[in-house]
């Protein structure tokens, strides 16, 4: 990096014009449609390389939700020459497996029919399988075993790892699928070979075991976490018509029904060169890297039909939506307002507003956690996705407070933003934070790579460089305007979570700390019965008796008596207040 570019900034510190830190991206387009983005850096002898495919769960439809993500997993399964000792037999076995799977799918249809009629409760349980299904499954397993004998397991990964590459991974979001790895600087040609091969002739072997892996990923991320499954449902309430209605992992019933044929079609449609951007960040010389990339990737045929755009738009919000759930979690509120997609001109003011509301010196922490103390924590986030966006605010209720009280405190803070302009000093504070972020984002190859990739996947990599000055230009009036525009009642979806009663996680009354395991249930029963007693006179009489007993009691019992006396006194106070 050329230091001289930075010097003027140091001199004039905190003037908006000089803020933007440009990531020096070189953009090229290959003859077949691939876009190539290059960022040259010589900090370490390595290159972070990868590509973004402009497809995500928003491009799916009911029945195949989760396919973009499942497909991402399949991209690591190899090529005709990587991953098997016998490419021809491998292909035959894949076809035989498909034939058997067609039969199994007919049985799965019968199992679903049995579920609809109430004959079985759970078609995923091994006991629900039909006899014919079990026969076909046994045959299928034979083909899998035969194929496995020919496999070179995870050879795609092994070649890279043996060459000193690291951090190979990929992700799928609503809008994009990204792939990446870090290679030593002298192995850039290996990257070109590996990535162009898997885009040119991927083989989707081990499709069905990978589908099971993805279902385990679903169990891990969604079904087995305290609020994952609730968040999936809440998200479906938030988005009415737009395909953001389902999440990238896909519906539980869709994942096990996706077929290999559907995956093949998906690949043909979305993994065309004109829908993919290649990105390299690191230790290379751009012209040489471009030549190398061109020689490998230009051989991939251009696609013949452009991938379809997502045309379904979210219907306008006409009324507030509310979701109440009991879960194994502390009480909390989670609120979403529909805002704007990536690149929308209101996005910058909303980003500034996010920063004004969040952080330890932000409005929410001061207004919810520190001041009236209704919450233990709070957050705010503007999320501009490719096709639509949301603004999310939430917080965890402090003990003794309800999520609804947190909700009202959030609205009070938003009212303040709507009615009073943000003071200049506060606005400058968040702009300073964005400006410093412009430098922090340049710390290493991978974070630079990821920012370029995400912006490109959302619509345009240039936003990594353009957003800085636009954020600096936001005025207090604009912040007020976007708050008034988007934070209206009919535009919000509110999730209220309370703790599910009766589980082991139930927090114990701290006053019980010194009691033995035998004493606790007895004391708890007495305290519970107090709630049903509303005769103050009777309670006062009981209290007097207790105090008299406690005075002469043995020390071991004194703690219980003291505790019960306290609880009775509290009940009396409660009744007298009413």
């Amino acid at each position, binding site marked *: 990096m050329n230091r001289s570019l930075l010097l003027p900034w140091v001199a004039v510190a905190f003037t908006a014009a000089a803020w933007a830190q440009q990531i020096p991206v070189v953009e090229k387009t290959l003859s077949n449609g691939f876009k190539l983005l290059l960022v040259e850096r010589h900090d370490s002898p390595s290159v972070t390389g990868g590509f973004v495919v402009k497809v995500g769960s928003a491009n799916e439809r009911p029945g195949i939700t989760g396919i973009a993500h499942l497909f991402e997993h399949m991209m690591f399964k190899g090529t005709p020459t990587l991953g098997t000792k016998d490419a021809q037999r491998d292909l035959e076995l894949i076809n035989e497996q498909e034939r058997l799977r067609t039969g199994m799918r007919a049985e799965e249809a019968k199992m679903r029919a049995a579920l609809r009629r109430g004959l079985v409760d759970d078609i995923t349980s091994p006991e629900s399988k039909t006899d014919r299904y079990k026969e076909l499954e046994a045959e299928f397993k034979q083909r899998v075993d035969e194929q496995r004998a020919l496999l070179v397991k995870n050879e795609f990964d092994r070649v890279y790892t*043996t060459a000193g590459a690291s951090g190979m991974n990929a992700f799928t979001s609503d809008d994009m699928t990204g792939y990446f790895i870090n290679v030593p600087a002298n192995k850039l040609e290996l990257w070109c070979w590996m990535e162009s091969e898997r885009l040119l002739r991927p083989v989707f072997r081990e499709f069905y075991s990978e589908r099971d892996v993805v279902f385990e990923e679903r169990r891990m991320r969604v079904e087995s976490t305290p609020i994952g499954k609730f968040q999936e449902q809440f998200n479906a309430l938030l988005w009415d018509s737009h395909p953001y209605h389902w999440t990238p992992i896909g519906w539980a019933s869709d994942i096990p029904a996706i077929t290999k044929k559907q995956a093949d079609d998906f690949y043909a449609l979305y993994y065309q060169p004109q829908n993919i951007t290649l990105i390299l960040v690191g230790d290379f010389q751009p012209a040489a890297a471009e030549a*190398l990339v061109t020689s490998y990737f230009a051989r991939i045929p251009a696609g013949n039909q452009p991938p379809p755009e997502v045309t379904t738009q979210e219907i306008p919000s006409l009324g507030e939506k509310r979701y109440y759930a009991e879960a194994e979690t502390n009480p909390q509120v989670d609120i979403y307002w529909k805002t704007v997609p990536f690149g929308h001109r209101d996005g910058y003011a909303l980003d500034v507003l996010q920063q004004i509301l969040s952080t330890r010196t932000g409005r929410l922490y001061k207004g919810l956690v520190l001041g009236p103390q209704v919450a233990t924590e709070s957050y705010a986030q503007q999320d501009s996705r490719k096709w639509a966006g949301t603004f999310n605010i939430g917080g965890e209720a402090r003990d003794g407070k309800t999520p609804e009280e947190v909700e009202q405190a959030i609205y009070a803070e938003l009212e303040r933003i709507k009615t009073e302009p943000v003071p200049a000093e506060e606005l400058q504070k968040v702009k300073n934070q964005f400006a410093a972020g412009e430098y922090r984002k340049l710390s290493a190859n991978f974070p630079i790579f990821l920012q370029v990739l995400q912006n490109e996947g959302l619509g345009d990599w240039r936003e990594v460089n353009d957003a800085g000055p636009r954020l600096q230009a936001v005025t207090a009036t604009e912040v007020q305007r976007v708050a008034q525009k988007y934070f209206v009642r009919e535009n919000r979806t509110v999730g209220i979570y309370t703790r599910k009663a009766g589980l082991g996680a139930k927090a114990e009354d701290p006053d019980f700390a010194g009691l033995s395991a035998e004493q606790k249930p007895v004391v708890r029963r007495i305290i519970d019965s107090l709630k049903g007693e509303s005769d103050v006179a009777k309670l006062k009489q009981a209290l007097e008796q207790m105090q008299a007993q406690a005075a002469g009691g043995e020390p071991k019992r004194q703690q219980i008596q003291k505790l019960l006396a306290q609880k009775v006194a509290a009940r009396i106070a409660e009744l007298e207040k009413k």
Partner: protein
Amino acid sequence: MKPIFPTAILLAAWPIFAADIPDRPEKLTFPPLTFEPPNPADYRVQLKAGPVAYVVADKTLPLVNVSLLVRTGNYLDPQGREGLAEFTGYLLARGGTASKQAEELEERLAFLAAGLSSSVGDDSGSVNLNLLSKDLPEGLAILREVLTAPRFQSDKLDLYRQQSVQGMKQRNDDSSAIDARERELLAYGTNFWACRFTTQKSVAAITQDDLREFHRKWFVPGNFVVAVNGDFDRAAMVAKLEELFANWPFKGETPPPIPTNTAMAKPGVYMVNKDVNQGRVVIMLPGVKRDDPDFPALQVMNDILGGGGFTSRIMNRVRSDEGLAYGAGSSFPGGIEYARPFQAGFASKSRTVAYAASIVVEELKRISEKPVSDEELNTAKRSFIDTFPENFNTKGKVAAILAREEFTGRFAREPNFWKTWRGKIEAVDQATVQRVARERLHPDQVVVLVVGQKDEILKGHPDHNTPLEKLVNGPLVELPLRDPLTMAPLPLDAGKPPATN
């Protein structure tokens, strides 16, 4: 500026035609890449004021990062006041200073877009300042005051205490939290310091005076190691650091050694009943310290067994072959002060938990009984040796890694540790891999922790006759959940879902 043309890239710049592209990646040739790790002497400074500092100048961005490692830790928590170290660590930077209220300090740092944080973990503390270089003088003045005259404002203590207790209430909500806690207890035993937990009572007992005393005892220059990187001149920075640590207003103590009285549970299967549809499993065996002479060989062995991701055996069988888990693998971490256990783990749907666990145990046997292949050995070795430069790929990492070496005392014992590390990996052969596996991995001695739906998991799967009870030469024990605020065991049926009305 003269363009840089590394040899590798010059060669690659020759046009390549599609016909020239080989059918296998092994046919590609690459120029050599040499890399030497940073030389500690280039950065190490013994400050007159006490601490050793690693000073790495780097003017590419107008940012400075100052990090302190502190000899302290949770192990110094007094009995009955568990949480004191953590509270002191958090509130040091968050509780104001002699001249500034916490709120005023936070506002100023936020306006400067500076990050200042502090924390105390198991066996060390840290304080970090990251800011624009133009603000360095002000930032260092704030840091000095935070370190020497923290206010530990009482409202901040009360708030953190409240947040801490509320956090405790989630202790049984997530199966991964239960797993993390119980695995420590099984690995180290209830008498080990790392297995003491904060409780509502213990954090209620913490006073402002406790924080002050803990701070003055351990936060002294003699207990610091410093890492600094960023936009400065080295000599000027050294002078600033001398000033930062000079004339400390209190004396402090050298902390006692970290106790090492760990005791792993007896072999067996330990289950915690939790109503989630995916069971979490960890399979443990006694481990080693990282200065064990076999440690490099154990790293290579573990990489082949389960540490190497998609090139490892456990991942290939449990995930890729059978589709039983999303993540599956093993680790053989070397402890610094005490041995840390070998662990293999995965999460699978209830009915296949036992089957997947049987595969992992089978792999422990196989790697002890048969030599690994040439290809496996080579892949594992390359994965350590050729990714080596990544450990040092930013100046911040260089400063941090060298400071850590100083802090743990390894620099004093083995100043050439990083220089010789690749050679030690290169020297590992098949026989050594098998020997260390045989010596360390005893499949019949494993301690297995399972967190999930007990009844469903014990049902097993009709296609696989691998009962969990027979996995180990030991009993099947159900462990209770713990009361989240007192950590006292709850009745065994606590994890069951409540009866539906």
